[in-house]
């Protein structure tokens, strides 16, 4: 007796520690063993949010980021007779639904209508073909996909334009086609066709993006990087040497800021500028070949926002420097030109200086087999819209021109490197030719070779244009989204550009400015979408019913077998208050 009570006491003392220790140990073991089974089942997809910005206080873009709704795949539930009737019925249904819309076969008019009428959806998820993915650069221009890709590209450009200029009161995300999400889409389409849109009571898929409320980016910085190559001053010459400026804006804007890599607009311009800087740095490193012009290379930011960065950069110049600028060449989208390029000017073509510059360029172009045209666009000082970079120079009465493959001046936030502007649309040969064109015409101007048949940057010389340099920079820029408000002052790209210019030029300056108050941007540009397969409430209720009846049957079975049928009946006859029965 005594031993058993002490045994019991010691067992009682040891109980908590043993319990917790063994519990934890076994739990860890079980969890480890079951890890393989517990980890699968949830699909996670990278998604990129539509840009959210305010222009002079007017909101644009998608105003929400977090998503937690069921998935559907069409704007209208099947079985609705007329589209207008379907609209009102479907609108009520879809305010808590996320629509997955693949880009192929997208019905833009329907979406335009929907967004135009400001209907509420739970969310929109656009599935883009993987060829538009900046991280997918293995095949440069898939040959079998070219016609389809062209159509997709047009639809994408249209969609982008629509979304950027609309105020969308629900989250809009972009994702790339992938096996997982294609399977989910197929499943969702199948259930939609069967006529059961997914809601809380019918199961299906639930899309969850956990994101906090998007916050304003206060003081977005524009960083301008300039490189200076001084020319050869003759002894005893106290006058300031004339300067030629070569400028390109390096930032982009698109419907999805996390995807705006802008390979052509304006990655091609940046790459061309870097290559020209490299070539002239070789020439200028030797005093024997140094020209009598200073060269100013400018990588400006704020291009999509009326070239705000260029404006601030020019206004930071010393008066003497600004007056010494002979002319400026701005590079904008020269990567997929084919054979035709345009020189855009603000001064009338009859101006002597413009004529001289244009003749210089077109004579070189002829030799290269390119066709260059001249376009004149008057600037209107009262209109805040600055369509080309050279207009900022012209407003300060500096002669400037923009070399571009675009023939028409782009509208605000157009041709600024959107979703469809990735590595596949740009080809190195165009960039190489454009570099040769600009470098050669600059050289002829600097060294006074006009009219002489001298090829400074001939192929097979040590001053040949280097295609692999161009290719590697194009690849890098095509992987780096460059929307200015999301680039911090010490962003790796800015550091890399600064270092590159430092290699090629003598003096590099970095200028940080704040983007004008006209534009306000909001953060939260990408996220992870979790796709859960959920069971409906009816399933849970059914299961509860089944389990309840199972337990009741089990109870009755056990009572009957161990105590007899009479006991079972007596339980239901009398209230079950007689529990204590002395053994």
């Amino acid at each position: 007796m005594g031993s058993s009570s002490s045994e019991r006491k010691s067992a009682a003392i040891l109980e908590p520690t043993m319990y917790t220790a063994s519990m934890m140990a076994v739990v860890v073991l079980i969890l480890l063993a079951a890890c393989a089974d517990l980890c699968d089942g949830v699909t996670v997809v990278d998604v990129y949010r539509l840009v959210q910005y305010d222009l002079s206080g007017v909101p644009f873009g998608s105003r929400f980021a977090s998503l937690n709704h069921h998935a559907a795949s069409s704007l209208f539930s099947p079985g609705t007779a007329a589209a207008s009737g379907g609209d009102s019925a479907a609108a009520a249904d879809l305010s808590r639904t996320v629509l997955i819309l693949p880009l192929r076969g997208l019905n833009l008019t329907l979406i335009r209508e929907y967004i135009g009428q400001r209907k509420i959806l739970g969310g929109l998820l656009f599935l883009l073909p993987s060829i538009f993915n900046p991280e997918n650069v293995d095949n440069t221009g898939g040959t079998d996909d070219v016609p389809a890709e062209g159509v997709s590209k047009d639809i994408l450009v249209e969609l982008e334009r629509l979304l950027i200029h609309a105020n969308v009161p629900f989250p809009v995300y972009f994702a790339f086609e992938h096996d997982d999400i294609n399977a989910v889409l197929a499943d969702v389409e199948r259930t939609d066709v069967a006529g059961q849109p997914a809601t809380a009571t019918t199961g299906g898929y639930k899309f969850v993006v956990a994101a906090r409320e998007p916050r304003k980016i206060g003081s977005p910085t524009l960083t301008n990087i300039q490189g200076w190559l001084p020319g050869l001053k003759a002894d005893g010459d106290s006058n300031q040497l004339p300067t030629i400026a070569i400028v390109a804006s390096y930032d982009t804007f698109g419907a999805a800021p996390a995807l705006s890599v802008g390979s052509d607009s304006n990655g091609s311009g940046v790459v061309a500028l870097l290559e020209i800087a490299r070539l002239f740095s070789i020439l200028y490193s030797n005093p024997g070949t140094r020209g009598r012009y200073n060269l100013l290379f400018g990588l400006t930011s704020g291009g999509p926002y009326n070239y705000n960065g260029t404006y601030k950069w020019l206004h930071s110049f010393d008066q003497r420097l600004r007056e010494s600028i002979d002319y400026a060449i701005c590079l904008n989208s020269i990567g997929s030109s084919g054979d035709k390029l345009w020189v855009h000017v603000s001064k009338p073509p009859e101006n002597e200086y413009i004529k001289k510059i244009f003749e210089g360029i077109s004579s070189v172009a002829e030799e290269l087999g390119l066709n260059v045209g001249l376009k004149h666009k008057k600037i209107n000082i009262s209109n805040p819209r600055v369509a080309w970079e050279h207009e900022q120079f012209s407003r300060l009465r500096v002669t400037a021109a923009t070399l571009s493959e675009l023939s028409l001046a782009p509208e605000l936030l157009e041709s600024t490197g959107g979703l469809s502007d990735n590595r596949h649309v740009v080809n190195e040969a165009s960039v190489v030719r454009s570099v040769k064109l600009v470098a050669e015409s600059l050289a002829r101007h600097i060294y006074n070779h006009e009219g002489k048949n001298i090829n400074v940057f001939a192929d097979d010389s040590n001053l040949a244009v280097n295609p692999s340099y161009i290719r590697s920079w194009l690849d890098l820029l095509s992987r780096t989204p460059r929307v200015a408000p999301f680039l911090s002052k010490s962003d790796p790209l800015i550091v890399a550009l600064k270092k590159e210019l430092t290699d090629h030029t003598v003096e590099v300056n970095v200028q940080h400015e704040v983007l004008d108050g006209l534009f306000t941007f909001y953060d939260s540009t990408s996220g992870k979408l979790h796709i859960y397969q959920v069971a409906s409430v009816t399933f849970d209720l059914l299961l509860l019913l089944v389990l309840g009846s199972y337990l009741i049957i089990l109870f009755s079975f056990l009572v009957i077998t161990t105590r007899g049928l009479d006991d079972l009946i007596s339980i239901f006859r009398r209230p079950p208050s007689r529990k204590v029965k002395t053994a």
Partner: protein
Amino acid sequence: MTVFHFFNCAILTFGPHAVYYAATPLSEYDTLGTSIKAAIVYLVTALVKLVCLATFLKVSESDSFDPYQELLKALIGFVDVAGLYFALTQLTHRNISQNHKFQAVGLGWAFADSVLHRLAPLWVGARGLEFTWDYILQGLEANANLILSLSLAALGSLMWLRKNKPKTLIPIIYTCAGIVATMPSILSYLRQGLGWQLPKVIGFELFTSLAMASISWQLFAICQRPSS
């Protein structure tokens, strides 16, 4: 909705134990103390098994069925049987008949097993949004386990507590006990060696547990006849 699912799976996993206690005369004879003691013995046994597994078993890289390892695991599984022996024979119980003793011990044993092995995964996994059948299958497994524990306890009590058994039945009793005791190894062989899917394995487990329960019930009834 997912807490709902957790609730459903919880009542599937732990409900039958409560129902068993309430439905059979166990509740009338207040055998809760016995069950709790059996649960504690199970926890100790689990700890001992864990230590033995950690000491003697090699961690295999592949998922295949290694007979030597499985044999070792089966041997360590007999620690279970030793624990049950301890619970049945060494612990002092209140004056309850053998009939109820083995039921109480088996119930406590199975309940501790369910809580230890199934509560944590249930809590962590069933409350998530994603729906899988795993937790319902786990509940069914808990049910099968309850039946198996009761059968093992019955056979154990026959082997160790009852002195006068018909001679012919002794080998049958021992073989049945052996089968039930090695059930975990058989199941892991089916899952890994033969590659059966989880629902199939659980179906097999339910079927065999019912078969074993009926056999042990018959044996118990036969052994009870001479003494009554």
